[in-house]
Structure formats: C-alpha cells, structure tokens
C-alpha cells in the first residue's frame, strides 16, 4: 500500500476500527474476542482505514462488518467469498476480508469458498468454526462431529464432517492457519500474517457458541488441557508441545507420531521442524488434520506459500494487451473490423 501521497500518519489504535454500533452477540460468545483481535491486528498493519472492506454472508459471525468502522457489506448466505472476489478483482488496492462461518463457507457457500481458494485471489477469509448453526438456533453443520445430537439430528448425525484445512489444501490453497477465540494474542498475530500474505488466506477460528454448542472445543482448548492437546506451530522451530514442552511430533513411515523427549532415546533433533513455506503440502496436510485424542490440534500458521494471485494476473494481462492494442476507446472499437460507408 502506498501511503506516501496521503501524507498521513497512521497511528491507529484498535478503537479506531470500532464502529458506533452496539455489538449484539450473546454475552460470552467467542466472536467478541475475535473482533478485538481483528481490530488490534488492523491497527498495526499501517494500512489506511478506508482501504479495508469487510464482506460477510449470513450467520452470527457475519454481523461482524457492522462492528467495524471500515467499508463493509453484509450480504447473503454463502456468497461473501464471491462478493469479496468481485471487490478485490475490481480494486486490488483494497484489503478485503471475508468473515464467514462453518455453515456459510462450507455448506451453502462451499462452491464459492473452494473456487476463491483455487484462484488464490487475495482475500482474507476468517472462518468462525463453532460446529453448529447458531443463528437458526442449533442445527448441525458440515463441521459437526459425526453423531452430534442437535435439533435436526435428534438421534445423532450420520454424516462425516469437513476438515477446513483439508479442504483448503485440496482446493490448492496456499495459506491456512488455525487459532481459537480466547487466544487473542495468537489470533492477532495470525490475522496480521494473513493480511500480509499475498493470496487467499484462510484462518480457521475454533469458536465457542455459548448457547447452542457450549464448550465444544473445550476438550482441546480448555484452560487445563490446552497445553497438552494443542501445538502452536512456529516456522523453523521443532514441533514441541505439552505443559513441559517435552512432547513432540516425528514422522514414522508415512504418518505423524507423538513422542516424548527422553523416551526411547528421542532427542530434540529427532523432532520435525515446521516449515509453512514448503510448497509440497504433504506434512502440512497431516498437521492440519491432526485430531484429539490421537494428536494435538495444530494452531498457528500451518501453510503459507507464495504464488500468483488472481487479481494481479488479471491486471497484468490487461496491461500487457493494452500496450499493443489498436483499440483504445469505444470509437475505435465501433469502427473496427468490417464496415462500409453509405453515401
């Protein structure tokens, strides 16, 4: 972003990104913390406020744009990724954010989600995953664990859930990160990295619905257990976790395996070192799919690979063609090709 000509000092605080609207999420909802983290991350990016556009679909999380003092468009169910794609393609100068949920992005909007990721269009997708439909008051979602009892699955679901990371990598995604709502520091850092990444960034936020699916992520992210049941991945660092940082991940055959330092002669140099920039997504795919209780759930930036972005390639193609074009305005076009004169 070029701020030189604007000659403004961008000393934002998170407050500058708060709109005058009263936040209407339920008290205790995980969304509040995500909002704070986004406002904090944005205030530190050095991008002028008017360059942000927040586009959302339908669902609790999709009310998000109303609470941001930026340009915002609260649209229709599932379509925000497509609308955001239009905004970014039209004006690549904007920092375009797509706020969505597990139902909005992966059920009704699944098609737009995978195609936005495939095109690698430079939009920032924050996917609030609470594994439930909250706004319609508690039906199962495409990420609900098989067997979950909800209003529309009174005897438990019989469907396999989607894994967000698996979908992103399957759709040729180049940036995937995961955080959880109450970890504002981690979320802020991830949002900031997602913003800086050129291309589609997907951030899955494990988010708590206090009313309809309360505590769904507690088994992993609960205060007492999170150190042992999650792993925060850092580039160049060994994949260690646990209260005492003594558990780690190694590759055994074609699978990841949890080991303990000091047991069976395992030392720190046996532990895998994280590399989110590795283009081959093999290990990243396994990391994104780790599930409790077999594995810790991976947090942090799992995959971050550079690539061509859709909107930049569109601009480049236009520029290239315009350089040698014979048709430069409508009058040229109208008179091009086969014409004849009637006297």
């Amino acid at each position: 972003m070029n701020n030189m000509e604007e000659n403004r000092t961008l000393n934002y605080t998170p407050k500058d990104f708060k709109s005058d609207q009263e936040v209407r999420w339920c008290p205790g909802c995980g969304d509040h913390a995500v909002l704070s983290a986004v406002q904090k991350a944005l205030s530190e990016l050095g991008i002028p406020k008017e360059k942000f556009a927040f586009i959302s679909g339908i669902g609790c999380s999709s009310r998000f744009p109303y609470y941001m003092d930026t340009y915002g468009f609260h649209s229709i169910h599932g379509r925000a990724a497509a609308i955001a794609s239009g905004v970014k393609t039209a004006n690549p100068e904007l920092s375009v954010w797509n706020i969505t949920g597990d139902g909005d992005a992966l059920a009704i909007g699944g098609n737009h989600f995978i195609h936005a990721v495939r095109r690698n269009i430079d939009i920032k997708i924050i996917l609030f995953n609470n594994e439930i439909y909250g706004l319609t008051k508690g039906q199962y979602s495409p990420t609900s664990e098989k067997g979950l009892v909800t209003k529309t699955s009174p005897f438990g679901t019989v469907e396999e859930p989607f894994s967000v990371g698996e979908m992103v990598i399957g759709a040729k995604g180049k940036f995937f990160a995961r955080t959880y709502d109450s970890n504002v520091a981690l979320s802020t850092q991830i949002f900031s990295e997602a913003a800086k990444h050129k291309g589609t960034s997907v951030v899955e936020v494990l988010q708590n619905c206090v009313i309809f699916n309360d505590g769904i992520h507690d088994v992993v992210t609960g205060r007492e257990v999170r150190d042992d049941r999650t792993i925060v991945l850092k580039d160049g660092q060994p994949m260690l976790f646990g209260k005492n940082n003594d558990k780690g991940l190694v590759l055994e055959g074609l699978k990841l395996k949890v080991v303990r330092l000091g047991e069976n002669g395992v030392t720190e140099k046996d532990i895998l070192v994280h590399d989110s920039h590795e283009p081959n997504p093999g290990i990243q795919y396994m990391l994104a799919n780790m599930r409790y209780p077999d594995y810790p759930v991976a947090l942090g930036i799992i995959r971050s690979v550079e690539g061509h972005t859709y909107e930049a390639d569109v601009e480049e193609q236009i520029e290239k063609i315009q350089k040698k074009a014979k048709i430069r305005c409508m009058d040229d076009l109208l008179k091009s090709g086969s014409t004849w004169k009637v006297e």
Partner: protein
Amino acid sequence: MAKNSKVIKREEVVIRFSGDSGDGMQLTGTLFSDTAALFGNDLSTFPDYPAEIRAPQGTVGGVSGFQIHLGHSEINTPGDYADVLVAMNPAAIKANAIWVKPGGTIIFDKDNFTEKNIERAGYISDPIAEEKLENYNIIPAPISSMVREALKDFGLDPKSVLRTKNMFALGMVYWLFDRKLKYTEQYFDKKFANKPEIAEANKVALRKGYYYAETIEALNPVIIIEPAQIDPGIYRNICGNTATAWGFLAAAEKAGLKTFIGSYPITPATGILEEMALRKDLGVKSFQAEDEIAGICTALGASFAGYLAVTSTSGPGLALKSEAIGLAVMAELPVVIVDVQRGGPSTGLPTKTEQADLLQALYGRNGESPVVVIAASTPSNCFHYAFTAAKIAIEHMTPVILLTDGYLANGTEPWKIPEMKDLPEIKPPYAEKNDIPFLPYKRDCERLVRAWAVPGTPGLEHRIGGLEKTMKGTVSYIPENHEQMVRIRADKVARIADEIPDLAVWGESSGDLLLTGWGGSQGYLMTAANELREEGYKVSLVCFNFINPLPKNVREVFSKFTKIAVAELNLGQFADYLRIKYPEFDYHKINKVQGMPFTIKEIKENCIKILEDE
C-alpha cells in the same frame, strides 16, 4: 466473369442455407450476408441450430440452418418463407420443406441423397416426391463429386475436400443473385493466410459452384436486388450479443467507469461474456464465475467497489441469481442483469427463442423487490438498450434487468455506427468527499437516489447489506421503518418513468386495432402491421422497450383504439401485466410458444380475426 443477360429486379428475397451441423452453414450464411451488406442491401439474418454440437449425422435433429432476408427496402425480420433453400442432405429437406415458398428454388447436394441418408431423414425413397415439391424449381447438384473432382490435384485429405461443399453451394447462390465473389475470396485469404492451400481450395470450390450455376442456368432469370435506401453513414453488421456487450462498454466510457462482467457460460447468452472477455484492450475485467450465483455476486462486489458491473445469463441463470438481485435492491447498488431468453421452463429449448421470462424478471424475487426491466427489440438496438440499462442502473443506484432473446442475440443486421460524442452523458451519483458522517441511505429528494461512496475514499466508511436499515445504515426491525423503506424503494423505481421516452405509435394514433408487443417480436409485428395497413385495415403498432416502469403515456395511447391485441412468444405474460396496470382496457392475446419467432402470416391472420370478431 460473364454478366448474366437475363435478369429480373426484386424488392426482397429470403435465402435459407441448411445442412448437418458440421456442414458449415453458419459460415456460409454469414459470408452471404456480409456480401449483401457490402453491396448495400438492408438485411436481417437468423441462425437456427441444434443444441447438440454434433447431433447424429444426417438426422433431422442435427440440421443447422441460417436464414437471410435481404432487400431493396427496409427489412425488419429474417423472413418467414424462403425463396431459395440450399439443402446439403435429405434431413435438411425434411426440416425445411414447409418453410419454402410455393414454387421456390431448392438446391440440394444429390450426392448426399443416398439410400442411408434418405432413410435417416425419415423418407422412403424420394424426398422431393414425398414432400410434393415437384413443381418447385428443383436443382439436384452433384456437389460432393464436383468438389472432389475440382480439388483432386490439391493433395488434400478427403475430409478437407468435402469441407468445401458449402462454398460450392454458396458460389451457386451468388450466381443466382448476381453477387461478386471478391469479399468471400478475401475472407479466405485472410482466414487461411497460413494455409494457402486451404484458402485456394475454398476459393476454387466457390468459383466452381458459381460457374456450375451459370452453366446449368440454375435460375432463369437471375434475380437482382438493388441496394436499399439507407441513411448515409458508416455501417457494420452486428448481432444482439455483441451489440449488448458494446452498449455496456460505451456506457462505462461515458460514465468514466471501468467495466466488470461476472458470468457463467449459458446458451444463448455466452456471446456477451466472450465479447467482454476479448475487450481487455478497453480494460474490461471479465470473471468467469464458478456458477450463476457467483456471476452476479462478483458483479455486486465490483459494483460496491465502484465499477459498472454486469452479469449475463439466460432464464435458468436468472432464477439462480434471484436472491442476489434482491440483495442489489436492498443494498441499492447498480448492476445490470442481462437475460437472453430461451425456451423454458427448466432447460427447455436452449438454442431456441422465447419471451417467457418476463414475469420472472418482474416478480421473481422474495419480498417487495422492484427492479427496472428493459427489453431490446432488434439485434442492433441491443446496444442502445444495454447503454440505457447501464445509465439507469448507475444514475439511480438500482439493479436493472435487460431482456433480450435467442433471436436477437444471434440475429444480425446492418447497424449505423454511432459516434460516442452523440451518446448521452452518464453521471454516477458519487458521495461528496466531505459528506461526513456518510449516511448510506440518505437520498436526493427528487429521484430518491442514495449516494455512491466507493471503498478507498477516506472518511466515507460505511456498511450496507441485506438486512433492513435506517437511513443511517443501522440495522432496524422497527415496523414503520421497514414499511417506509419498502415504499421508498418502490417509489424510487417508479420515478424512473420521468426519464424514459413516451411510447411511440407506428401508424395512425387512432384506429380499429392497436397491435401491441414488446422486445424481440418488434420486426415481425412491424412488418405485419405495415402489410395490414397496406391492405386497408386501420391497424397501428406499439412495441414496448420499457417494461418497468412503463412509459407515462400508455393509457392515452391505448384509449384511442377500439381493440388492443398483445402478441408475444409466451402464453400472455405481458398482456396480463398490462391488465394489472391498465384494467380498463380489454386485451386480445396472440401467443406462440414453439421456440421460434412469429411469422408475419400468423400475426396478420390473428389480427384480422380479432378485427372481424364482434
């Protein structure tokens, strides 16, 4: 080339080229019409092709046709019945025999009338006899064997040789109408600049066909159609889809905006997306979306970002876009949705024409969801109505549905090229830079239009969306606010009537019958009304281009006629719409749903019946 000695002058003539979908009939027809246009004839063309790219060879389902109507006077339709039919196989006779004028000329490739092909077309042994065409001017030409003979030294494979059959046939038709071969020869030199042997083969086939027709005196006398009296100016042939695309581009240039099209390929609308995708030279951003919904949603995103945004589709796609059109109504963003209508419902008749999406365009959304609906009525005026649709969308911050149809989309006619300086200005209602705090739903009092604050503009940050809002942009569930906003949105669209032209009457402003139509039927209705007047009937014509809102003078126009007949290619949707708007009049319906345009004959017969019924 020897000048034909025996000639006769005619006002107009209709020619139909017909063959297997792989026989190159569309190209043959296009080359003939370009030659006619360059000569100065007025003309109208219509391609008629199957949905299957290559249906089984030799079957009636696989017949592809191209009809050209050219004349010395004004030509408004591609014509009902052909004076000359070129049939490359028996199936082409089967599909077209009833469309040849009694006593007309039929040229066919007799080499292709094999037992197998005759049977495939559904005949027993002799198509000409079975269709009772013996009294027609039948020209059984050995086209396949003649091109084989003519090109035997070219070293081409047999397939490439037979591919020139259409040019042999075209050469014959050129002789019948005393046309020059020059334009067509130039076309091949250019098209096959890198394959001179193919260019030469086609040129040879063309000339051999011409000489063959001359030798056998295929038509006696030869028919000459003098150039038409046409307004001076620079002309080109244009089809509806290209004219539509160019209309948008012209509007963007006038408005100082960039153009975005988000679309999903669908017959018969794809040509619009294809033409826009070509126009990178003019900076168009074309987005081939993952589906119809993403087509309009990406367009809405681009509109939010300050572009002239367009999505093109046909009926099934319009159905998928409904929810997003509702969002555009609510968010009050400019976007043009083009529906190139085809036969429906469902997949229906993808390559055929119909006018049955009218009520879908007007009403096919949830809630009170008014949109502007405009219909183009000739292939070339698609330019004007696309331009106008974009102008209204931008200046009134509203979605506009532009209806064209398969007949307009693929039909071509000569078009006098406009100068950009002569087109009206378009002024986007941008928010003022110091309009802080920006209230997204504050309106100008006169037209009720909200201002457009484009992301990137400092200080005008705001939120819009599909939930009901107050003027400030705050979500509101207050009952009175909702009703007020619903009424304002309806009123905003209704007030556009102040800016659209009055309905024009062709013919006397009063009389016994007002023939009424809309959109793509215009040419047929006009010809029928002209002929009825010449025959002494007091018939006038109106053709609507502005459907919602309607022109302001409709009641006044209607009240001057004893009877009103509404002709449309559906079961009476526009007639029913008029009945809601102007219940004081009685509407006689003239309807057809066969995937084909009206014929002049059936319109006239219906009108006379309505006139004669008490």
